[in-house]
């Protein structure tokens, strides 16, 4: 599937991909970082997160990572998730879509006030 087929992304999904752009994370770390980056706007609960991950895994936006970051090696049962190339293309396309939206709104506002 092309990256455009996934647009527009739901806010939750957007933040999950955004968090994963910064590196591999396990589930709880995704929840925590998403809340932090969105300044509390996205507060995913575990069930919601894993349903989202399940869909993203099915769609090929994220994959389970085989590697374990050394720093977190204390718990080998945790699963880590990594963003795929398709996932990166999707979030990039979404960012561009939002930028275009924002720009058209800005210029409309400029001409409205001018």
């Amino acid at each position: 599937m092309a990256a455009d087929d996934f647009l527009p992304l739901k806010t939750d999904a957007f933040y999950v991909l955004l968090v994963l752009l910064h590196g591999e994370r396990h589930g709880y770390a995704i929840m925590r970082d998403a809340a932090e980056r969105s300044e509390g706007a996205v507060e995913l609960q575990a069930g919601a997160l894993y349903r989202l991950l399940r869909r993203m895994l099915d769609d090929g936006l994220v994959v389970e990572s085989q590697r374990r970051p050394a720093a977190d090696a204390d718990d080998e049962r945790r699963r880590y998730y990594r963003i795929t190339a398709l996932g990166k293309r999707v979030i990039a396309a979404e960012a561009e879509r939002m930028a275009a939206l924002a720009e058209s709104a800005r210029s409309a506002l400029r001409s409205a006030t001018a």
Partner: protein
Amino acid sequence: MADFRLPPLNGGERVYRALLHLYPRRFRRAFSQELVEAFRDQRRAASRDGTPAPAFWAAILRDLTTQACAERFSTAWRRRTGSDDEESLMTAVPFALRLQELRIAARRLLRTPSFTIATVLVLAVGIGATTAVFSVVNGVILRPLPYPDADRLVALGHTVQLSGVGSVDQSDGSLLFYQQHARAFDAVGGWRDVGANIAATADDASRAERIDAAAITANLFDVLEAPPTLGRTFRSGEDRINAAPVAILSSALWERRFHSDRAVVGKRIVVDGVSREIVGVMPRAFSYPSNTTELWIPIAFDPPHASAGSFNFHGVARLRTGSTVDAARADLDRVLPHILDEFPSGIPRAMWESVHLRATVTPLRDAIVGDTSRLLWILLGSVSLLLVIACANVANLFLVRGEARGLELAVRAALGSGTVGIVVQSLSEAIVLAFAGGMLGVLFSIVGVRAVVTFGGRLGLPRLAEISVDAYVLAFAATASVLCALFVSIIPILRARRVQVALVLREAGRGATTGAVRQRARAVLVVAQVALALVLVAASGLLARSFERLSHVKPGFDARGVVMARFVLPDATYPTGTAKAQFYNRLMSAVRALPGVEDASLTSWVPLTNDHDDTTIEVEDHPLPPNAVGRIHFVPAVDARYFHVMGIPMLAGRAFESSDPKHPVAEVVVSKAFADRYWPGKSPLGKRIRPGIDGQWFTVVGEVGDVHHEALDKAAEDAVYFSFVSKRGSDVYTPGYLALVARGSAADATTASEIRKAVRSLDPGLPTFDERSLMDVVSAASARARITLWLLAVASAVALLLGAVGIYGVMAYSVSLRQREIGVRIALGARPSDVRRLVSRGGLGLAAIGVAIGIVCALGVTRLLRGLLYDVSPTDPLTLVATSVVLLFVAFGASWIPARRASALDPVEALRASA
């Protein structure tokens, strides 16, 4: 080897792990370990942040239930839409579903009358109850007010920062001021409830009566855009003090007093001793400010003497086209600071400013509906649950029917009728049943709505006259019926694809464990029914406990044997305080002398009625900071014998000395709560207080027990009792609006009629009204709680019954399926008690799962009841436990009969029959 890094499995985690089974299996297998890890992390974070355990669990459970439902749904959806024959099914069914099919379905249903009647009745009860409550919600909350452009009508009020009170309405000053200066409105009007004595006519002296009336601004009907049926409405200028006296009749009063005489306009009616010209009659449907208002008279504004500070009026206005509630509020707040330039408030400006008066603008509909909307939504929620339970029950019956016809369907499938035929058959039967159930349900709801309109007044329901079964209600009933039809037939439809012809045919021949899959679907339905029933029963259990607490609240007075009657002394006949006081004193001696009356007294506020009397009170030894206003307290005006008549204990001191207008006393009696507030641990006797901000000091001479003045579920309030004859400067002040209370030894009705005669003998033109026993007053105070409780109790009794029927059906059917197995067990030496235990354990198991799920749901849902509960927590553990026990007990009872039947099986017969 043990994994020592694993934290010990604690109770909470075990519960969470168990609840993960709500997720579909595939999802659970993939993620349960992860979910538990996340749960641990969240729990650690919660304890670090100090999140309270209930909040933590509420978030976890909400996530779990919503996500599990969503995942299950999407799994099912993917499974069904994944294959392409489903696509063709979705398009083929509407084509196959013709009127012809429905006729055949109806004929088929008629061949099994008991099934059909049972199903239609169950659906009709569910749809009828839901529709009836919806029509109330529709009439009271949803439907716009019956005036043109009703969304532009708003109620105007004010908020204040004053201890003891948070909001005030309009004063004559503020109404006149807003009419003059506010720009956001087409018109600003106002009104005030007044009672009115309608005089006897010349030809019939017995027809003096007391009615509800409203004093209104001349433009109020224009604000509402409500035209009269006869004559005209008020003209501008008629609401001034020297205008010619006029009145407008309600259609009820017009019929009663004037026999619907169309020439009534121009005639006169005597209201409170003043003869007024009748200028118009309002239509029957007009019921503002309330549906008991029978007469409208103009307010007699006196602009040069109007006060900004006595808030005795309600404000209502029509927004200018395009204006909004917020803009209107800003507009009022813009002009409000200048009000004292035009109208004095009677208090110093700095003090006026210290209370921070701010305008409020509320949609008129919200102002009228008030807090009943919450109650109505809760009732609608409960009956909707009932409808779902009813549907689950019917769906169950449907499955049994499908079972019985399994062979027929399999043969049809084998002959090539295919899935479409089976779906159409199921669906058409469901549609016919739901249609019949819906029709009958609408009939039920029409009866129900009649009952609500008759009894709804006791619930304090506004807009009663507007409740009816209209197009919206019918649309609602139709939607409910369609949803029922879909719900009822959805399981057979979902299963239709799975009919494995060969298997069914083989099993039908052998009669072994047919329909194990269907049996599971039925078990799920039963679990859902039990869970929903638990929610309803728990809710009514909570209300029952709350009601029980409420009925133990002591009102603070002894209502037994006391009757009340009201009358109002018009200023026209009794112009001065002295004249009123003399009449009251004569009346008291007359009533006290009546046979059967032990004692009698007067009060301006009969507790637990709508009376209200409050004012700011300044306490001498608690000096106020400059420009501050004293706290607001209740100030009933009473006769000295009041405490004795009402059985309110005198804790210290004495009552007032005298009610002689020649020697008005400056004495007050305070309630215990008032004494404790200002002089905790000390005697209040001899202290001094004064009402308002200046004027005379009153000495506290007695302390009495606390009384619930406003409501039983509110704390007993501080009160200061003044004598009904009090000194105001050099004048004597006596209110014209007092209620008579008398303690009698005879029956209440006899005492009331004696009082009526005594009043008439002193003043034949003075009607008494609102004659009631105080026992009625007390029971009316809890009427709303009682009616709500009854409604929910009936709903939950029906839910319990349907749940029991559901469990019975499943267990009875499972016994019939397992005849062969049970027969073998008995033949091998199982005792009857073993067999009974086997079967009832199955029923109890289902019920237990239902109870567990139900408790989780109830914990979330009962929070909505908070405003209706008195002194009971919405998560009261005792209620939840008792509810669970009741449900398990019912489940046990329902599975007992099939269990007994199973244990009485003759093994030879059973084996031969199924061989």
